[in-house]
């Protein structure tokens, strides 16, 4: 099973890179999901439709992959609703404050060798690792 997961992960990574890459090649845009999502939730002049369509594609593509039984959508953590609300607020606020998230900085920016994105990616991995350490090893794994 472990090897199967690795192959799935590699293929998944190639698809993500391809999806993001095509958005650049075709439309000249960076596939930063937080920026795209903010542009849908808080519409600014023009530019709304392609972002909304991209997000719809995201949901359909992901659902199709889970429905075809090659991918899994499953939560698998012990988290209370208040924890999830705080977490989501931090993700949304932090992504806007930091000008990007895992896709815009982590994939597109790192692949472009942007120093800003490499700094942001290193930072969110570090605070993520510290948070997981606290939750899993000091608080017993559920929150």
């Amino acid at each position, binding site marked *: 099973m472990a090897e199967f997961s690795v192959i799935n992960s590699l293929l998944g990574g190639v698809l*993500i*890179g391809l999806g993001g890459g095509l958005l650049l090649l075709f439309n*000249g845009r960076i596939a930063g999901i937080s920026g795209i999502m903010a542009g849908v939730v*808080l519409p600014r002049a023009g530019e709304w439709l392609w972002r909304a369509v991209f997000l719809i594609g995201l949901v359909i593509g992901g659902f199709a*992959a889970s429905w075809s039984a090659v991918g899994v959508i499953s939560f698998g953590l012990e988290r209370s609703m208040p924890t999830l609300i705080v977490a989501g607020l931090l993700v949304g606020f932090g992504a806007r404050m930091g000008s990007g998230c895992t896709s815009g900085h982590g994939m597109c920016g790192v692949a*472009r060798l942007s120093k800003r994105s490499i700094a942001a990616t290193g*930072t969110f991995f570090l*605070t993520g690792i510290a948070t997981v350490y606290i939750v899993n090893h000091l608080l017993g794994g559920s929150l």
Partner: protein
Amino acid sequence: MKNIAAALISGLLFGGGLTLGGMTQPSRIVGVMDVTGVWDPTLVFLFLAAVGTYHVIYRLAVPRGKPLFATNFEIPTRKDINPTLLSGAALFGVGWALSGYCPGPAVVSLGSGQAQAIVVVVAIAAGMALFDLGPLVPRGLRNIPKKAT
């Protein structure tokens, strides 16, 4: 309309990749960050494959001078590593590790209808609105690009 079709294809591939690769399993996100526990390196392969693939397409696309269905590339040009960038990324990492969701996989997981994904997506949207519109943030800190220095 070609650019709308392109956005749809891009989203389909991206969403399929997130699910296939394991990003829609928050337990795996926590697993790859649990470096002092039972470390699950699976998503490291996804990260490397995604960055590698994007890098190749970036290097092929940008020298063309313009994208196929738009007039110009819109690629960030800022180079400054400042406290706003790092603080935002730091908060993002805490939220990402708490829920196991970053924005893309959270949106994808809406398709499954699971309550956790719905709550997190609504909270992410609220967090974005809080930063972009909220009274908490001085205007100078918002993502308005500074003039070139």
